[in-house]
């Protein structure tokens, strides 16, 4: 019989209580996996969208809002000539309610700009010119809204025609409503305004040179900022807030798990008081008793973590297909996040077991001879 078997037997002596404690931890860990996976997925989904458009640098004025704030379209002309800039494309992007969809990405793109290039038409066609009152739907957006080529789409007060359904090569692109920038400016009353410039750099440019170009762009456009595509989301205040809220909410759930494990382990020590005294009387060192309690609580944490990761993955898969989220982001459920979550669960177990272990170490072996 190994020491591990002793520990496992300790946990199995009250299977219902052990099971309920596992559920408590696993809910906390599921929250970590789901919320953090979603917030990280937000960054990776938008980064993938940028990559599929061939965008290396994004010029934006994103501060506290999720969608960047508008700035004059004339800024585009100030950077187009810079060495290292291969192409630029003005963008006006909005996150807005469209018909029954609570939040859609509406992407107005400079007519003829490179940011149209990644769209592969699956059915229908592209708009014929910038003035055509038409939209192209990413395939997920079309699916979410139940639209087909030829259908009408109500956007604000304007009725537009769905002329095509396209595959943009990335989840965010496929979840977008795409139209010409000038048309969106007109609909939103933002004439002459954009809120992003997609910049494609000359091929072969290394990362350091791209960062120098970002600095140069930021200097030339004081009202906006040039950043490597993806980083502009990761470093935005909004994302940081979402991320902090995800961790905060998750850790609250984990705290509930801590209290659950601590309660279970205290009950265990209380119930097994005489057993622990017998072990001490039979020659077990106090350090071994402490290790036994800590290992039991760590194992509770470990298995709670495994179940929690499974629950989190299942929960995220349900959530990502809800109409409110579908097409906006693909949760990032990396192996790293799962390992981190299980490690958090084990740490929860160990921390929760510290006080019960200390209590157990205070027991006197002479109690073994009583009763």
């Amino acid at each position, binding site marked *: 019989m190994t020491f591990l078997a002793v520990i496992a037997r300790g946990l199995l002596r009250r299977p219902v209580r052990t099971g309920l404690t596992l559920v408590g931890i696993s809910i906390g860990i599921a929250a970590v996996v789901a919320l953090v996976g979603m917030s990280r997925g937000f960054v990776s989904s938008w980064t993938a969208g940028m990559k599929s458009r061939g965008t290396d640098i994004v010029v934006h004025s994103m501060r506290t809002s999720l969608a960047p704030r508008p700035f004059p379209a004339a800024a585009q002309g100030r950077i187009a000539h810079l060495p290292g800039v291969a192409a630029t494309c003005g963008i006006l992007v909005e996150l807005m309610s469209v018909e029954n969809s609570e939040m859609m990405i509406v992407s107005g793109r400079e007519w003829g700009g490179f940011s149209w290039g990644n769209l592969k038409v699956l059915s229908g066609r592209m708009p014929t010119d910038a003035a055509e009152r038409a939209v192209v739907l990413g395939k997920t957006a079309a699916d979410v809204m139940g639209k087909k080529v030829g259908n009408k789409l109500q956007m604000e007060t304007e009725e537009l025609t769905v002329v095509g359904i396209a595959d943009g090569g990335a989840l965010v692109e496929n979840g977008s409503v795409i139209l010409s920038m000038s048309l969106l400016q007109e609909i939103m009353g933002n004439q002459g305004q954009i809120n992003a410039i997609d910049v494609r750099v000359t091929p072969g440019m290394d990362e350091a040179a791209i960062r120098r170009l970002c600095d140069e762009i930021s200097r030339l456009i004081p009202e906006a900022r040039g950043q490597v595509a993806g980083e502009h989301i990761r470093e935005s205040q909004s994302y940081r807030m979402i991320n902090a809220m995800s961790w905060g909410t998750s850790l609250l759930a984990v705290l509930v798990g801590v209290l659950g494990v601590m309660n279970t382990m205290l009950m265990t020590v209380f119930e097994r008081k005489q*057993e622990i005294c*017998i072990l*001490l009387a*039979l*020659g077990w*060192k106090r350090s071994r008793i402490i290790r036994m309690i800590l290992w039991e609580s760590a194992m509770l944490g470990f298995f709670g973590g495994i179940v929690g990761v499974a629950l989190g993955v299942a929960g995220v898969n349900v959530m990502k297909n809800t109409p409110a989220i579908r097409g906006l982001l693909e949760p990032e459920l990396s192996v790293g996040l799962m390992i981190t979550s299980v490690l958090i669960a084990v740490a929860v177990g160990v921390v929760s077991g510290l006080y019960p272990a200390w209590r157990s170490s205070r027991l006197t072996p002479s109690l073994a001879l009583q009763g």
Partner: protein
Amino acid sequence: MPETMNQPAPAAGPSAAACVFEAVDLKKSYDDGQVQALRGVSFRINEGEFVAVIGPSGCGKTTLLQMLGALDRPSSGALLYRGKSLPDLPEPATYRAREIGFVFQSFHLLPTFTAVENVQIPMFETDRSLPERRERADEMLKAVGLEKRANHFPSKLSGGERQRVAIARSLANGPSVLLADEPTGNLDSQNAGHVLELLSRLHREQKMTLILVTHDMGIARRASRAIQMKDGHIVFDGNPAELSLA
């Protein structure tokens, strides 16, 4: 026979045998001195002796056993194990694990472990490998005649069988001293007889020192020496056959 014995008694065993325990004016009190369990007892116990500690409930015999097993510390006085002060042992757990074996009145087998697993419990504090622990446990169960019940949980064993498993467990690390606290207290007379016979046989064959606490005069008479206690004092120390005279 004096009412109290404050000086170490002469060893009842062969004079050449080594002294295992020596107590001098040993006292133990609880609750800030309000309860005095031991009021200054002195004795010597030599290697290989079978000593019965007898007396009524509350006379201090279990407290004495706790001191000998390093489960508790005396309030004053000296208690030596092979010349070393027991209360000052740097690691009492090691002493309990390697030098002594405990047999309890209520068996105290762990209910979630089988007989053979219970016997392995004390061996965790030794250098024995997993197969060695298993082999030793099987050997000990065979010594108490329970090799066929090795994989049974305590709930599936009779009272006598449980106590035999507990005896096997107490022998697991090959102790030189066996401390038994009312080992037949929870057994019927037939099982009690078997357990006493087993303890006597192990004492003879393994030449270990056996200290057995009992309130049963009949059991005490099977020992080679009896220490009778009353109100925290030793009132008799000698040949068990003379117990009725005390």
